Every structure is written in C-alpha cells, then in structure tokens.
C-alpha cells in the first residue's frame, strides 16, 4: 500500500477548477516529484494534501487513513510536514524559535533536542545563526531553515514546494543534495518543482502536471528521456 495516495481529487479556488481529478501515489522511502509550468496545480496539490484547501471531490489517504477528516494543524500529527512555497519562515522570530515551532506538536524534550542537533548537522549555518531573526537570513538560509523546521516534527513524508525558487544555482545543488540525504535517512519526499532538470535527477518517479491534470506519470529516468518532457520542461530542442 502506498504511503500517500490521492484518488481523483478535484479542488477549486472559488469557481476556478484548479485540480481536475488528480490521482497519484507516493510509496514509503521514495522521492516523487511533481513537475509542471506555473499555474499547473502543483502547489494546489500540496495545499490539498495538508487540507489548507480541502478537496471538493476525491480522497487523500495516508497509510489508508482518509485525511479529509482532519484540519491542517492535525495533519502534522499524522506525519505530514510541508515546506511552503516562498519558504514561509516566521521572519520576526529567531531561527531557534522557528525550529522550536516545527516541533510544536511534540512533547518529548530529549527527542526534540536530538532532532535539533540533526538539523544543525545538516545545516551548520543555522546553528551559527540560531539567535538571529529569521527575516535577516539570506534566501538560501531561509530555505534551509524552512526545511529544518519541517523536519522538526519528525515527519514520515515531507512535502517540498519549490525549494529551488529564487536561489543561485550552486545553492540549488546543495539544497538538492540535502534533500537526497534526508531521503536516505528514511523520510519519504514529495517534491514540487519548476526546475524539472534538478528534480528529475534526484527523484525516483515523477508526475507531469498541466492545467490541473496529470498528463504523464513514469520513472524519473523515463521522464528525463521523454521527448515531450525534454521539449517542454527541460528546454531541450
């Protein structure tokens, strides 16, 4: 059984039909990527999974349990953690406070301290800047903080929304290395990306989204070699 499964999900923003029957699965231990152009519904899919935008039709299940019975803040307890688009760090709070809030639902101080160490090992920069307001960090550091904060709830599945957005290529490389490392340490990952080239390099499987529908689903390798994907999303002629 898949860890996360979306079946025939329809979602709306007011009258706008943003997702038109999305079905996808993410298995335990995988990195699955969702690629597509701006406005294809990638972010919307993540908002549906976390119930920020409850689906009007269709089901979202985690380990066979229907998530639509929960509200956003209860989804975390189920083991889903999200790094929102644009990072969403709490700018006026310190780096450490941001990380502490990532562990908001937990009550095991020793476990939290352990995970804090783990985050600081992954991102030594955050340790140096733990007392600083998050708003004063650079874009790359904020992205690290957002990922670190999401890890603090010890998620089973991590949803990443455009981690490469607005970052210099060299930073993108290192962020993606870390995403792979997190996956190797046992966290399942659903990665939404416009940077299809990078995403397909680290993912096991991928889905291509276009105007609210999935038009392609395959292994990352096959997608990399797919002519349509190469033309449309990888910029190859």
């Amino acid at each position, binding site marked *: 059984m898949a860890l996360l499964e979306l079946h025939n999900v329809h979602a709306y923003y007011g009258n706008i039909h943003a997702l038109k029957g999305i079905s996808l699965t993410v298995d335990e231990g995988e990195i699955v990527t969702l690629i597509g152009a701006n406005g294809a519904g990638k972010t919307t899919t993540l908002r549906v999974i*976390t119930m*920020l935008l409850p689906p009007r039709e269709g089901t979202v299940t985690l380990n066979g349990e229907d998530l639509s019975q929960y*509200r*956003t*803040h*209860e*989804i*975390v*307890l189920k083991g889903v*953690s*999200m790094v*929102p688009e644009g990072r*969403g760090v*709490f*700018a*006026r*709070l310190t780096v450490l*406070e941001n990380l*502490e*809030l*990532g562990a*908001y*639902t937990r009550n095991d101080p020793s476990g939290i301290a352990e995970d804090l160490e783990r985050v600081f090992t992954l991102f030594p920069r955050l340790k140096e800047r733990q007392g600083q307001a998050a708003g004063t960090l650079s874009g790359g550091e904020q992205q690290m903080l957002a990922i670190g*904060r999401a890890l603090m*709830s010890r998620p089973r599945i991590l949803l990443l929304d455009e981690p490469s957005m607005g970052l210099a290529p060299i930073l993108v490389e290192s962020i993606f290395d870390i995403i792979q490392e997190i996956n190797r340490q046992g966290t399942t990952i659903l990665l939404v990306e416009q940077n299809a080239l990078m995403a397909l390099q680290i993912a096991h499987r991928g889905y291509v989204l276009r105007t609210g529908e999935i038009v392609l689903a395959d292994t990352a390798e096959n997608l990399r070699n797919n002519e349509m994907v190469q033309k449309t999303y990888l910029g190859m002629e």
Partner: protein
Amino acid sequence: MNQWQRRLEYWRRRYDITDVVVWLFGLAILAVAVYGTVRSLQTTTYDSKRWAQFVVYGISQGGVYALIALGYTLVYGILFMINFAHGEIFMFGAFGALFTALALDKAGYWNGHPVLSLIIVLLVAMTTSSVIAVLVERVAYRPLRKAPRLVPLITAIGASFTLQYTARSFFGSGLRAFPEMDMLKGSVSVFGLDIGKSHALTIVVSLLMMAGLYWYVQKTKTGKAMRAVAENKDVAALMGIDVDQIIVRTFILGASMAGVAGVLYSLIFFQVKFFMGFVPGIKAFTAAVLGGIGNIPGAMLGGYFLGIFESLGPALILEGLGIPAPSQLKDVIAFTMLVMVLIFRPTGILGEAVSEKRA
C-alpha cells in the same frame, strides 16, 4: 497624455497639496503647544514637586491605558481588526470586581484581609473579562474570519453597543460606588514625593502585569505560537498550531489585562458604570495607535506617553494660553496627540510599515 494619465496626475498633485496642508496644520499645533509651554513655564506657580506629581499621576493613569491598549494591539496583531468591544470588556471586568468587592466588604474581608481581597478581586475581574471576550470572539468575530476586513469592524461596534446596554439592563444606568479600602487611603512618600497609595498600587501592578505578559509572549510555547499566527496563519497551521485556539488565548490574554485595568481604575475613581468603558477604551485605542498598533512594547509606551501628556498637558501647555479650567480639556490633549502622530508618523512610535502589506 490620455484621460487616465491626466486624472492620475491631477490626483497626485492634489494629494501633495493635502499633504502639505496637513503638515502645516500639524506644525501650527506644534507651535501653539510650544508657545503655551513657554508661557506656562514663565508664569508658573507650580514648584518642581508639583510637576513631578503630575508625571507620577500620568504614569499611574498611563499604566491603566497601557493595560487596555495591549488588548487592542494583541488582537490587531493577530486578526488585523480593531476590537471595538474591548472597552466594554474592561467595563465588565470592573463590574465583576465591584460585585466581588461589595461581597467581600459585607463579609468584612475587604478591610480585614486587604491583600487577599485584592488578589481575589483581580482574579474575578480577569475571569469576567475573559469570559466576555471569548464570547464576543465566538459569536461576533469567528464566523466572519474570512469576510472582508470592514465587516468584523462593524460587528465590533455592534458588539460594543450590545455589551454596553446588556450591562445597563442588568446593572442599571446609575453610578455604583466601588468600596474604598482603608489600606489604600492616604499616600506614601517616595523620594520626597507624596503619591496616593492607590496610584502607587496601580503603577506597581500594571508594571508587573506587563512584565508578565511580555515574558509570556516571548518565552512560552503559546506565546511563540501567537507570534507565529500573527505572522502567517497558514504556515502556523502547518506547524500543527491550532490557529483558532491561539486566537482565543490571545483574546483571553488581552481581556485579562483589561480586567486588571478595570480593578485599578475602580480603585482610583471609586465609580463603576455601564458606560465607563467608552472613554478609557477610546483613549487606550489612541495609545495603541500612538505606539504603533500591533506592537506590544508600542502599546505599553503609547499608554504611558498618553497618560503623562494628559496629566502634564493642561498645566504645561494650556494654562499658558490663558484657557480657563484647563484640566477639563485633557481629552483634547489626548486626541490632539493622536492627530499629531498620525500626521507626522502614521505608523506610530514603534510601528512598522509592514502592517499595510500584511493586511
């Protein structure tokens, strides 16, 4: 140049002129104030001790304003709405205190165990205010969470009237006398200044409450969650924070401060009335705007600023202008100060421009 560009140009020019006029207006007020101050100081009959006393009473009054202002600022910080019913939350706190104090007085505890009585009265007032605030949030604000921003503002005014006249129908429209406490009669001498004991108590208690609130917001888990919710509700929910619950706790926190303010106010003025929330409410709102609405230290600073100016202003500014009975015009000073701040620093003393962007 097409019609729209011309219209834009016209508006821009017009806006600039208004701006200049408003500035000149502000400067004129400032000039009058400075002139009045100079004249007052030249002709003053007050000695330095008297001036210092004005400041001390200002600090006491300012502490009450600051406590109420915190409620406005906390709610604004998290919901971007002005809780106009907050003055009534303060009033209900005072009524809760009144009935408890009367009962304690009847039983002989009021003067028999004054410290214990005060603690009980404070706790009752905080609870009463909190219950009313939670009720208002649940009934009047939560259903409108997703509505345009003006809508809850109108509801807030409605809630304010509803609470006022509910209080009137229950408690009558007359003044109720708050029992005096023997312990708080007379004055204490601090650095050679005679300070009324109830004022001294007000200063100490309001400072303690504010220190406690600051600690709570900065250091506790709930406080951190409040700050997170204030910044971004969706992301806060993604952290597992129950946003609705945090909003309720924010209302409770603000209402508790208002409840304490209600007790202190009653201990200074010995009067409780259904209408008593209106003027302190507006003043505290002014203080919150003065300090920069949404900013917690700003509300504290704004409260003291307003209290001190209100207390000093009549003697310092108005007397030199030859205005008779200047102390009755202290409200004018308070609201003129609001106008001045809005002219010269619209975001308030400690306010940031970000509130516009977030709203």
